[in-house]
């Protein structure tokens, strides 16, 4: 080991109190950053999971032009759900699951007063809904998170059931929120779903409400899940769907699979990534990262100021020692290295301890779990903070490199002392 590196380490140990204070600032700063990063990671992960595994999926496949016309008349751009088409999609690399869906809008009405709602006898109640007609088995494989939002009752068992799962905000005003009681009701009392088919004529069918959904996102209060086959029959659209939702083994492959599927399916179809369908979610996640980066910058700046201060004190206290080393023949570059190495030790050790401490707290928080409600959501999410190796390596490198960088100034001042003046310092 170079004698200067050796001396740097010993010098840090010499003035323990100052070293501990300066290192303490690094430790506290890095620890706080690590915990914050772990928390931000879990928030971003929850947001991403809600989107990728609960609402949008990782990829969606529609007829060309569907996303542009979805608000006018989406049923016009329905297409046939064929085994060949499914195979084309499922055989692509990284595709793990696929769910056909038929999106439609309509109204739901209680035709006759419910027995439990005697005060409103004779009043018909109607509300609007935006529904996804799904195959329950395939949908669960593709969007498993959605089924965690089922706060009461159950999912319809088959695609040809006459049952609905609706948001609590739909069920409440209709008086059908008691799903256990609903199961006992005869079909004549079930709510009727009225929806326009592709020709614009209204069709109706009675569905029993057997499950209630909570809010995962603020925009899902009109959401209902309906059995695919039953809805296709209602809308006279046998085997027709509006989209496939695709789940991949990892979302990082989304762009690559998108290209592959675009080639396989040709120009009749459009393949959209989750961040193209819901760009604001990507922005939200990106903004959180930006905010974290700004906070990190401020933290690191404070930490670096602590190191600069400590290093200047260090130089000031050791002026005569620097003079002695110069008299002995130590060159300017070596004096500079001596103090920079001390700064690097301070930064690296502080970062290491801070990261370890922070990782411990993150691990503990992850084990306990942090219950949290997202804005506009009626559901409690359990956040489990976690860290990525990427963050740990970046935080350690930035702190160590930053410490080296800010130490150059006091070290340079030390190396530029004149031996005569340094030796005569008191």
């Amino acid at each position, binding site marked *: 080991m170079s*004698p*200067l590196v050796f*001396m740097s380490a*010993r*010098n840090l*140990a*010499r003035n323990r109190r100052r070293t501990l204070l300066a290192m303490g600032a690094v430790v506290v700063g890095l620890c706080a950053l690590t915990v914050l990063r772990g928390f931000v990671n879990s928030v971003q992960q929850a947001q991403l999971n809600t989107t990728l595994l609960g609402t949008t999926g990782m990829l969606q496949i529609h007829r060309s032009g569907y996303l542009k016309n979805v608000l006018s008349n989406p049923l016009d751009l329905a297409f046939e759900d064929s085994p060949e088409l499914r195979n084309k999609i499922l055989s692509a690399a990284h595709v793990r699951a696929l769910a056909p869906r038929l999106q439609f809008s309509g109204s739901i009405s209680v035709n006759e007063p419910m027995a439990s709602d005697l005060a409103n006898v004779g009043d018909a109640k109607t509300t609007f809904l935006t529904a996804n007609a799904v195959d329950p088995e395939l949908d669960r494989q593709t969007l498993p998170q959605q089924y965690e939002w089922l706060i009461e009752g159950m999912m319809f068992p088959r695609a040809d059931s006459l049952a609905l799962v609706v948001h609590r905000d739909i069920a409440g005003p209709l008086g059908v929120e008691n799903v256990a009681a609903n199961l006992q009701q005869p079909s004549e009392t079930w709510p009727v779903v009225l929806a326009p088919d592709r020709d614009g004529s209204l069709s109706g069918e009675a569905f029993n409400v057997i499950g209630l959904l909570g809010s995962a996102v603020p925009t899902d209060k009109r959401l209902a899940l309906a059995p695919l086959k039953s809805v296709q029959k209602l809308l006279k659209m046998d085997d027709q769907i509006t989209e496939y939702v695709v789940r991949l083994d990892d979302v990082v492959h989304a762009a690559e699979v998108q290209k592959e599927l675009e080639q396989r399916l040709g120009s009749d179809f459009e393949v959209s990534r989750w961040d193209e369908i819901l760009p604001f979610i990507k922005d939200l996640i990106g903004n959180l990262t930006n905010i974290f980066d700004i906070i990190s910058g401020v933290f690191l700046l404070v930490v670096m100021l602590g190191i600069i201060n400590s290093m200047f004190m260090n130089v000031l206290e050791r002026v*005569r*020692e620097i*003079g*002695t*080393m*110069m*008299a*002995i*023949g*130590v*060159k*300017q*570059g*070596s004096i500079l290295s001596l103090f920079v190495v001390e700064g690097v030790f301070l930064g690296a050790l502080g970062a290491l301890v801070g990261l370890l401490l922070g990782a411990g707290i993150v691990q503990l928080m992850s084990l306990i779990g942090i219950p949290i409600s997202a804005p506009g959501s009626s559901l409690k999410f359990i956040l489990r903070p976690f860290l990525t190796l990427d963050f740990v390596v970046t935080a350690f490198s930035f702190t160590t490199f930053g410490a080296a960088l800010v130490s150059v100034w006091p070290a340079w001042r030390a190396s530029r002392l*004149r*031996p*005569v003046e340094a*030796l005569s310092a008191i």
Partner: protein
Amino acid sequence: MANTETHSTLTNAPNANAIIDIRDLRKVYQLGKTSVEALRGVNFEVSEGEFTVVLGPSGSGKTTLLNIIGCLDRATSGTYRLDGEDVSQRDFNELAEVRNYKIGFIFQNFNLIPVLNVLENIEFPCLVRKEQQNRAELRERVRALCAEVGLERFMKHRPDELSGGQRQRVAIARALITQPRLVLADEPTANLDSKTSDQILELMQRLNRQHDTTFLFATHDPRVMDLARRTVRIKDGLVQPD
């Protein structure tokens, strides 16, 4: 002329036997708008193996002269040849190399590196050299020097665990480890009691004889003056005739 005020008559040709050969050395300090001439044309020689004392009151230029001789500072004009080489115009790093290879320093306040133990302090000047050191051989030399200055039992001690006399012995050993051509001792006994001072002076005298190393002292201590083979007096920036 300044030459007439020096202690010896000098020719223009460099003295081949001189370790220190100073000609018409001037040092001017700029203090704001005022110039202060600390050395006003000093001519001075020290031959190999001499045990010389430089005397002079405060403000005489003694410290300035010693700093220049020690290559810690540079003269404003004039020439300084150390061991036959003109070092007057060397830059900072070149002077650091000259100090490391040719000069050993013994300071009034010992100036040991506090984080290094006795052994490490002594070997330190050799370790800062560019060329690779044979550590085993170096350690052997350090041990031999420690024994010579009476520190063999304290090699693992840090400076703050030693007495003043012991610290000065470490400084002497550190000054000698590089086998320098010149040892500069600035008030080496000022912070020591009389008994320890005598021991230190005796040690330096012995080392001077054994190693034939040139010693140059700056001191007010009459005991050092008694031991010196030659005394050089400096006053008002000029070396006084003997």
